[in-house]
């Protein structure tokens, strides 16, 4: 085994992020062993603390699922950055930091005297990442965003849902999470370069560009062929069928038949080998054109069988076929359980709960997760320990609403 503390142990991250995009980036850093100190507004803290969902739908800033999931393994201190003492204190912390991540609107860091040139003058080795919906420059830089905006301006929404209905948003906070993931990757690349150059730098990540990266299949269809994207319900609009979600006896399954061999196997599975030579249904393209007719053939077969029966039989024939779990079923998933995916964490107020686990398994040092911090939980540790304040200083800072 490698370092018991984690692959990024020794790395100090100052986390000025809030809501979802920035916290996903710093969450990953913390999980790999970096020391991540989250800096929150005195009083309210990260707005994600007020968003929920909450246990029993009862709002409590220490019990928001969004906050608890995205801030595992971090420390929390409070600091009022609208005061000179606050920004001066931050600069003292920056001296020994390696990474600063923030996701304020463009211009906010500059207004606090904390834009990259000023931060660089305090610590030239610092890698600073800024995450916004539209980036630090360009005509939309001040536009407001949310998840629906992220899905909309990057084309994914236009391709989700029924053609005769409104386009649909995707699941949860995908645009924000993806911008956070991009920021993580960029910060690690910058840290790698810093090992030889000794220099930090600034990174500009936008939700719009991160999500556009995820839409390249459809984008390529415009840049190369000039065909406009479409929605095709639960079908993947590639003129091939079935790449869809189907109802079956006890739930839903997902089938993606792409190659001729896979569709031949599907015909064998549903006991219709005659369809191989059928001019209307034999090829992926012809099945796309006659997809309603094909669905009428396959649906009765599926409705007589359970998800489990179908997936097992289909995978035996190497057909890409999976079940569509509810959350209850996902927590019981055999594969995830066999791989010890889930992580149980104890929290003093929320109690013991199960969290989604590591996105990948590193064999030197596995991801390490501890519960999210209470608001300002580490004030004393950081201000007295790292910055050498006395307990009296702490009281004074609190009274002046600086922490």
């Amino acid at each position: 085994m490698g370092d018991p503390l984690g692959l990024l142990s020794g790395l100090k991250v100052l986390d000025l992020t809030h809501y979802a995009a920035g916290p996903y980036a710093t969450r990953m850093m913390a999980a790999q062993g970096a020391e991540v100190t989250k800096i929150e507004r005195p009083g309210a803290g990260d707005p994600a603390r007020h968003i929920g969902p909450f246990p029993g739908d009862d709002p409590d800033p220490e019990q928001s699922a969004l906050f608890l999931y995205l801030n595992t393994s971090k420390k929390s201190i409070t600091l009022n950055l609208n005061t000179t003492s606050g920004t001066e204190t931050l600069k003292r912390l920056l001296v020994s930091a390696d990474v600063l991540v923030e996701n304020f609107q463009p211009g906010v860091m500059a207004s606090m005297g904390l834009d990259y040139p000023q931060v660089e003058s305090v610590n030239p080795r610092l890698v600073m990442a800024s995450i916004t919906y539209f980036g630090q420059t360009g005509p939309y830089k001040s536009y407001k965003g949310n998840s629906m905006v992220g899905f909309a301006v990057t084309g994914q929404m236009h391709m989700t849902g029924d053609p005769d209905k409104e386009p649909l948003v995707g699941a949860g906070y995908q645009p924000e999470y993806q911008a956070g993931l991009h920021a993580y990757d960029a910060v690690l690349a910058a840290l790698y370069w810093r090992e030889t150059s000794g220099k930090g730098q600034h990174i500009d990540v936008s939700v719009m560009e991160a999500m556009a990266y995820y839409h390249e299949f459809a984008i390529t269809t415009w840049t190369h062929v000039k065909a406009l994207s479409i929605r095709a319900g639960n079908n993947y609009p590639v003129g091939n069928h079935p790449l869809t979600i189907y109802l079956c006896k006890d739930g839903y399954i997902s089938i993606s038949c792409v190659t001729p061999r896979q569709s031949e196997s599907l015909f064998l599975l549903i006991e219709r080998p005659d369809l191989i030579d059928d001019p209307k249904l034999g090829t992926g393209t012809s099945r796309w054109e006659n997809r309603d007719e094909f669905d009428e053939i396959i649906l009765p077969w599926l409705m007589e069988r359970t998800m489990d029966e179908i997936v097992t039989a289909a995978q035996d024939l190497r057909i890409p076929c999976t079940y569509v779990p509810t959350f209850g079923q996902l927590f019981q998933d055999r594969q995830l359980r066999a791989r010890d995916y889930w992580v149980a964490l104890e929290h003093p107020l929320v109690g013991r709960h199960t969290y989604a686990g590591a996105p990948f398994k590193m064999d030197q040092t596995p991801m390490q997760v501890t519960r999210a911090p209470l608001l300002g939980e580490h004030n004393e540790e950081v201000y007295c320990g790292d910055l050498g304040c006395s307990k009296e200083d702490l009281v004074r800072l609190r009274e002046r609403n600086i922490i």
Partner: protein
Amino acid sequence: MTEMALAGVRVLDLTRGWSGPIGARFMADLGAEVIKVEYLTDRGMASVEAPKDPTDFASVCHAAYPDNDPGKDPYNRYGPFNEYNRNKMSLTLNLTNQRCKEAFLTLVSISDVVIENYSPRVMANFGLDYQSLKLVNPSIIFIAMPGFGMTGPHRHHVSYGTNIEPTAGLSNMIGYPGPTPYKSGEAYPDPNAGLHGVAAVLTALFYRRRTGIGQFIDLSQNEAAVGLIGEALLAFDMNNEEPVRMGNRHPYHAPHNTYRCKGDDRWVTITVTNDQEWQSLSDLMGNPSWAREEKFGDQLSRWQYQDELDEYISQWTSGRDYMELMHTLQAAGVTAAAVYTNRDIVEDPHLKERGYFQEIPHPRTGPTLFSGVPVLLSKTPGTLRIHAPMMGEHNDFLLRDLVGLGEEEVSELKAQKAIVTRPPETYEGPPY
């Protein structure tokens, strides 16, 4: 010359499809030297039919060749391949051939990273699993990214990104009110796995630069996607309630929806989260009498009467242009977005000003517009340096200059068709 963040990192990219190639491309864009090792490849369709309707997305996008013309070498003209593999070199190696395998191992001995997204059995069948590669390069970083991971009862299950989105739980959160789970119209978990793969590899590279120790990374594309809805899963564990599908509505904000605009299938999203934003929206709508009714007077009440509210707002948006609405609403401080088509993204003035799309020449497709680098590093910016390689374009260079084979040995491999510059005759399309 500007320095590049990942200069000096050599990556052997054995991936196919979208998930692996886009991850390796991210590293190539930031300066890594990426060698695509291919043979039975994913350079387009096995047999190409001309689309019946060259403007119909569904009929052209699985065979996206410029001008809908596969040409005599479709494997060098396929749009998605060329998009996902720019900045890379191509080496064709039949890894079931002993000499090719030896050449590959020589490359491993002088490389930093090996990335593959086969089913778990494939690399072992080649005799090229991590344990074997470690013998020739103890500090190699090896990432395997199969659908469901390298262990567990379902490790051999085959899947595409289109299967992962439903089976990772994401579809359970998408849909119109009602029982049917929806998936997005794209293989979203593919690039997600690729970018999580980059995260793992760069973490391992950073660690190795400090310690000299390499490692094996097991990335389940399914697990990388499950974590994307971690907050919703935690909420389920707290409350034992499945998510309620509500189209584009929000649990407590209203309006929060998509509204039909002028034109065919044109939409705008509008979100109001407080009274001030509501006032701005009302002002833009010309303060109609309905907007002043008491039931629309505060956030909670607007949420309770959102069926009516959405009806009124749709009447206002339906005769207006979706792009114009986005700009007008945003200028007034209301969160709004046009629902972009793929064309809208490519032609967007904001992305244009940020230089996101870039045109680079390609010998078989001419100058073509490609997606850019999505992260802007101030001192080591990523670049689009060169088009995706022709199949086997760098065979001679790589085998002679890097692997150190003689002229005769290279010719012999060519004669055996162990290295090629076009897909082998038996090629039936992408192997999965």
